[in-house]
């Protein structure tokens, strides 16, 4: 099958690549751009490990065709920290012990960031709803909830 041109912004940089029409956004980010912070946990949109932000909306990159995000702005976990340091959500996850094995962490952090961008002072229920599509098998979610609360209160 013939490749097609995909133009988009990834972590603030303009990118143009030829991709196969059936390539997923996950494959494009991991294999073509080397952004392996995007994790594949199930390949069918169930676990949320592959979450990236497309125009600041959390999207499951494993079931999103790469060409569908043509012209969009994509943010992966690699795009959050700056020269000044970690993003407040990342900082809160580190400090509150919200990270164990770390495989779900990139997706979880991006879902949390997107929530706080839309709703800077969420209730616990709102945090839970926003993270309901991101599975974590290690933490029991208690410290993750705490971390998002911390990031929201600006104490991260």
């Amino acid at each position, binding site marked *: 099958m013939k490749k097609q041109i995909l133009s988009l912004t990834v972590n603030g940089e303009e990118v143009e690549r030829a991709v196969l029409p059936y390539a997923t956004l996950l494959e494009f980010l991991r294999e073509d751009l080397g952004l392996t912070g995007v994790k*594949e*946990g199930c390949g*069918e949109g169930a676990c949320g490990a592959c979450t990236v932000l497309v125009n600041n909306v959390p999207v499951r990159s494993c079931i999103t065709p790469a060409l569908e995000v043509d012209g969009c702005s994509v943010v992966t*976990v690699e795009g959050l920290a700056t020269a000044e340091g970690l993003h407040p959500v990342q900082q809160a996850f580190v400090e509150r012990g919200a990270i*164990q094995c770390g495989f779900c962490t*990139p997706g979880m952090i991006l879902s949390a960031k997107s929530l706080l961008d839309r709703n800077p002072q969420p209730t616990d229920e709102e945090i839970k709803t926003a993270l309901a599509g991101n599975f974590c*098998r290690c933490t*029991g979610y*208690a410290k993750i909830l705490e971390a998002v609360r911390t990031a929201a209160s600006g104490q991260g």
Partner: protein
Amino acid sequence: MSEKGFTYIGKSVPRVDSHAKATGEAVFTADLQLPRMLVAKVLRSPYPHARILNIDTTRAKALKGVHAVVTGRDTAGEKWGVFRYTRDQQLLCVDKVRYVGDEVAAVAAVDEETAMEALRLIQVEYEELPAVFDCHSALEPDAPRIHEEFPRNINVAVKIDVGDVESAFKQCALVREDTFVAEEDSYFMTEPYAVVANSHADGSVEVWMPNASPHTKAKALSNALRLPLSKVNVRKVTIGGAFGGRSDVFPAEFITCLLSVRCGRPVKLVYTREENTIATRMGHAMITTIKTGVDKEGRVLARDIVSYLDGGAYSSTGPIATSVPFLCHEQTYRMDNVRFHGYRVYTNKPVRGMIRIHGRSFACGIDTQLDMIAEELGIDPVTIRLRNARRPGESTPTGSYVASCGLVECIEKTAERSDFLKKYSERKPNCGIGMGLNSVQTGFPLGIRGGSQAFVKFHEDGGATVISGVVDNGQGNDNMLVQIAAEELGLPMEDIRLVSADTEVTPTDAGSYSMISTFGGGNAVKRAAADARAQIFEVASEMLEADPDDLVAKNRKIFVRGAPASAIPLEKVVRKALLMGRPIMGRGSFNPDVDQRREWITNPRGQLSQAFSFGATVTEVEVDPETGMVKARKVTCAQDCGFALNPMVVEGQFEGGVAMGGQGGMLGEEHRWHKGHVLNPSLLEYKIPAITDMPEIEPIIVETIDPGGPYGAKEAGMSIAMSAAQAYANAVGNALGVYFNHFPLTPERILAGIENKKPGIRTVFDFEPARVLEVEPRKP
């Protein structure tokens, strides 16, 4: 400095590995990209039981882009088994397949599409054989035999008999027998299994994969590949969870290495989520019949237990898996007279290993039956547990001395904080409260690989590198090692680097299964760091003109106790040592004090483990009688972890244990089957808890300062995962006024419990009990 006088340990500090995991920098196996790397795929059996008549790989080999195709004929025919006497699994099937998913052939190709196409071109001729899918059928005298040398499909038979059980039953005020059944559960660690192998011209091979013991993987690979052990180099990589499911050796790593050796190129094999479920390990299904006799105060005088474990197609950790549910129980509860018959039975299903709440039917059965006995005697669940709970200074029935034990404190604290007795007596409709107790080991007798060693080297700038064989599956072992070294060396954690879990570089370690990492690896690093510190003090004593015994290492400085003003920088001491030709190289090792004569089947007595953790969990639930759905409201859990080296990490282990053991493990996690096919191998159908499912959790850390543990530490969290399952089971039963004996408690089973409610103190379902079997001696 904390109240106990420690600077770095005992504090909730962020883990050393968390920064890289928060930024996406941490590299997991599937993230590895090597030059010229090929992609591997595995062809699996579509039948639960069949003879392989012929495999034709001609067309697959001819496909453009295919670099190698391997089958059982390309192997040395070595079989894998954890023990010499359980070696029953060909890492690529030669003559027979024994479950749907058994490895038949594999290819290495330039990309995934080509590899998939090559699999399609491999032609396998099978002769289908009759298959068995549950313990009772597999044990029938005329059942198809899955392994020729194992009559009645009995893979492992464990017998433990302590005291005089029959006489003791005669003294009992009350005796009851109940049967408990649990279905298969799965790990669903977030990272699917993956392997990268890179063979080199010098005959060595490097391997990366999620693992719970790099040294065990290397040994098995060296046997199967017929390579010297020193040429199999298992490398460190970030690991996305284990929960017991990475402890064993799988065909995947053997196949990937074999393909890499064949092609002379690096090869990557990444399992799909479905393959991770079917072709690594899953939990055992289990039937347990428990006969318990008590005196009129509810003290257990005698117990007789028979368990059948559905082991699937191969042995895996068979003898250990068969014994551990009993051993956890004998650690938790006092008994003078007890008998256990455990049988692990082969079936034509995927291979079963140890999982975080291994033996659900056993542990939940024991605690459910204890509640039934309490009700018959008019005693509350807390009192009957306090009367039977293990105390420190006692020995288990099979002869393990328990040096430290805070079980009574765990029971008392969880009962008090949850207001257990008040809620239990109030009995609000459809609301329930339940308690579970458990205990786990910190390691087993594992021969030459049972201990741990470590080195500490210093850099010219005064920074240090810790070198240890301990592996981190996500629980925080890397951080544990660094935190301990920091304390011993008086160095901030950021000055300490860690090199670990690399078999070429790091010394032997027991592996992270059996909860020994802190006790074994932590002690070894503590000793290595103390040795390095002694060497530093030796040099510094000359510089400070003081006795080494009077020196203190703190915050990158060495000074005479009481005179921090005249401190010299550690860096200066390190450089002086180099100049003197006495470089600082700390060395430490730790071998747990266990009875190496103890053997799982032939000699199940003696010191099993040097220390044991103990835990109690209380769960409060509300059940919707219309739908059978359970809402867990609150979980209060306490564990005696010895000493909390990092309370935040310990709490995280408790909370994770509640999620996997109680919330998921007891309320819904189970595999469904059709003729040996798993119907729910993926996360769409197999529901693990989401954040919205979780109750509020109150973790309570109990510290008993074990005399053998590093600073008194034992292990963090496993007693909670186990006891949480028991607490959930009892809470749901309590809400409905019934006693469940079929786990997990799915809505269907809960509705059946409501509909079938019968008078009297009895279990909801009637099951055929597990009975003692005549075991024929195995043919050699």
